[in-house]
C-alpha cells in the first residue's frame, strides 16, 4: 500500500484536522467524536441539517459543512458508519429550536447508528428527524433488503436542504424538500479499479486487468455485473440509460447532471463522459440547466465515475442557485 498515511488508525482524525486547519474561520472540530460543526454553530430559528457516514467519500460528508449546506457532520472509520456516540453528539452540537434533520445515506449500519442516536436525543427532548437517501439505481429495490443505496445524489439533497434551512424554512418544509430531491434524483456508477482502505492495507475487491464493475457501490460493493472495459461512450450510454429510465425522466424535463469521479479517475476523463452525457441528454429532450463535473462522493482512490441526473422544478432550481460555502473550494 503506497499512500500518504501515518498511523492508519489515525487516518480519519488526521485528515479531519487538515480540513479544519485549512478552514479555521469556517469549521470547528471535536476529535473525540470525529465531528465537524460550523464555527458559527447552529442558529436558532433555522433548521440544522446534519449528516454522518463512513469516511473515504471525501468531500462528502464533513467537507460539506458550511453556510447553505450542512450544519455539522461526523465521520466513521473508512467505509464504516460512525459510532452511535458520534451521531448522538453531532445531533446535540447542532441542536436548534427549529429542529434537526439528519440526512442518512441508506445503509444498514448508518441507519442503525442514527436510529440509536436519535432515540437517545429524542429522549432528551431534542426535535430530530431522519431522512433516508437512496438514489442508486444499480441494485434493484426489494422488500427483503434495506433498499437502494444512497450515493452521489446525496449532494443535491444536502444543497437543497441546506439552502432551504438557511432561508428559515420549517423542519416539515426542509424534510419535504429532501423528499422531493430524493424522489427526483438517480445515480449509477462504474468502477475501473478497486481501492485500499488504509487500515485494511489491501484492495477491498479484485478487478482483472480488463474488468470493470458496473453499478459498483461507493464502498466497493458489487453492483449489477462484472464486465470488460468498453469505450467511454458505451459506458456513458449504459449509465445514462440506467439512470434516465428510472424516475422516469421525460422529454422536456429541466435537469441537473453530475459526473462524479470516484477518486482515481482524472478530470479529463470525467469531461469525456460529460460530453457524451450532455449529447444524450439533449437527444432525450432534456434541458441541462446545471452541471457538476468533479469529485463529490468518492471511494478513496477508486478509478471510476458515476452519473447522476436530478429532475428540476422552479423551487429546486432556486435552491441550487443559492449561495453556499464549504471546505471544498478552489480559490
Amino acid at each position: 500500500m503506497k499512500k500518504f498515511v501515518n498511523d492508519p488508525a489515525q487516518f480519519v482524525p488526521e485528515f479531519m484536522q487538515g480540513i479544519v486547519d485549512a478552514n479555521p474561520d469556517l469549521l470547528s472540530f471535536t476529535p473525540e467524536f470525529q465531528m465537524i460543526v460550523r464555527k458559527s454553530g447552529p442558529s436558532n430559528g433555522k433548521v440544522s441539517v446534519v449528516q454522518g457516514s463512513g469516511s473515504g467519500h471525501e468531500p462528502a460528508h464533513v467537507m460539506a459543512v458550511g453556510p447553505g449546506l450542512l450544519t455539522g457532520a461526523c465521520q466513521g472509520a473508512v467505509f464504516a458508519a460512525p459510532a452511535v456516540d458520534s451521531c448522538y453528539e453531532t445531533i446535540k452540537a447542532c441542536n436548534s429550536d427549529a429542529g434537526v434533520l439528519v440526512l442518512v445515506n441508506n445503509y444498514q449500519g448508518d441507519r442503525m447508528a442514527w436510529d440509536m442516536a436519535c432515540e437517545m436525543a429524542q429522549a432528551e427532548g431534542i426535535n430530530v428527524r431522519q431522512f433516508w437517501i437512496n438514489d442508486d439505481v444499480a441494485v434493484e429495490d426489494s422488500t427483503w433488503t434495506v433498499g437502494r443505496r444512497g450515493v452521489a445524489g446525496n449532494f443535491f439533497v444536502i444543497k437543497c436542504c441546506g439552502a432551504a434551512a438557511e432561508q428559515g424554512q420549517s423542519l416539515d418544509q426542509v424534510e419535504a424538500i429532501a423528499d422531493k430531491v430524493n424522489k427526483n434524483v438517480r445515480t449509477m456508477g462504474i468502477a475501473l479499479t478497486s481501492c485500499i482502505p488504509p487500515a485494511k492495507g489491501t484492495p477491498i475487491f479484485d478487478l482483472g486487468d480488463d474488468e470493470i464493475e458496473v453499478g459498483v457501490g461507493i464502498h466497493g460493493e458489487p453492483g449489477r455485473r462484472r464486465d470488460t472495459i468498453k469505450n467511454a461512450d458505451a459506458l456513458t450510454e449504459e449509465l445514462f440509460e440506467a439512470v434516465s429510465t428510472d424516475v422516469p425522466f421525460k422529454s422536456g424535463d429541466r435537469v441537473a447532471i453530475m459526473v462524479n469521479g470516484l477518486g482515481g479517475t482524472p478530470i479529463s476523463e470525467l469531461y469525456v463522459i460529460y460530453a457524451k452525457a450532455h449529447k444524450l441528454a439533449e437527444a432525450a429532450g432534456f434541458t441541462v440547466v446545471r452541471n457538476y463535473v468533479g469529485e463529490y462522493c468518492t471511494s478513496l482512490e477508486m478509478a471510476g465515475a458515476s452519473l447522476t441526473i436530478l429532475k428540476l422544478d422552479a423551487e429546486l432550481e432556486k435552491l441550487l442557485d443559492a449561495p453556499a460555502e464549504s471546505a471544498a473550494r478552489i480559490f
Partner: protein
Amino acid sequence: MSEISQADVERAIRTTCATVLRNEHYFADLDGLAGDGDFGTSLATGFRQIEKEWDDIPKTDIGALLLKISMLVSKHVGGSSGPIWGTGFMKAAMLTRGKTEITLADLAAMLGSAIEGIQARGGAKLGDKTLLDALIPVHQALEAGGDPAAALKQAATVADNAVDETRGLVAHRGRASQVGERSANTPDPGIVAIATILQDWCKDRGIERTPTAPEVAKATA
C-alpha cells in the same frame, strides 16, 4: 446453584478480545467478499479499546461490567456492528444487574434478550444471513441446559455449522444485502465471528473440539 462466576464472564470477554484482534484482517477480508470490508476493523477498534480500558472497567458485578462493555462498543465500533453488538451487550447487562454469578439458564436468557434487541434494532430474522443465524441456534443449545462445558461445546458446534448452512443463502441485511444474489456462496463474517469466539472459548476451557467450517478453522488456527 452457581454455574458461571463473574471471573468466568471476565475471562470470556478477554478471550473474545483476543479472538477479534487476532482476526482483524481476516474478518475484514471476509466482509470484503460481499460486503464492504470493514467488519474486522470496526470490531477490533472496539475490543482494542476494551483491552486498553480493562483495568478501569467496573467489576462490581456482571451487569455493570457488561453495561460498560456495551457503552464502549457504542462509542468505538462503527458500521452495523456498533449498534448490533452494543444493543446485544446492553440487553445482557440489564438481566445481570447486581449479579456476580449466574446459571446456564441465566446465560441463555441473557442471549435471548440480546437476540430480541438485535432483531428490534436491525429488523433481521433467522435466515437473513446475519450473526442471528448463529446466535439463535446457540441460544437453543444453551436453553437445553445440562453441564455448562457440554453446553458450550454444543453451542460452538451449532454456530460452526451455521457458517456452512448459511453459506448458500443470499444476505438480506447489512451491506452484503445490497448486492443481491452476489452475496450467495460467501460466508457471513458475523456468523464466522460468533463461531470463532465460541471455538476459542472452548479452547480456553480445555474443551476438545475441531472446527468444521474452513473459515472457523482458519480463524482459530
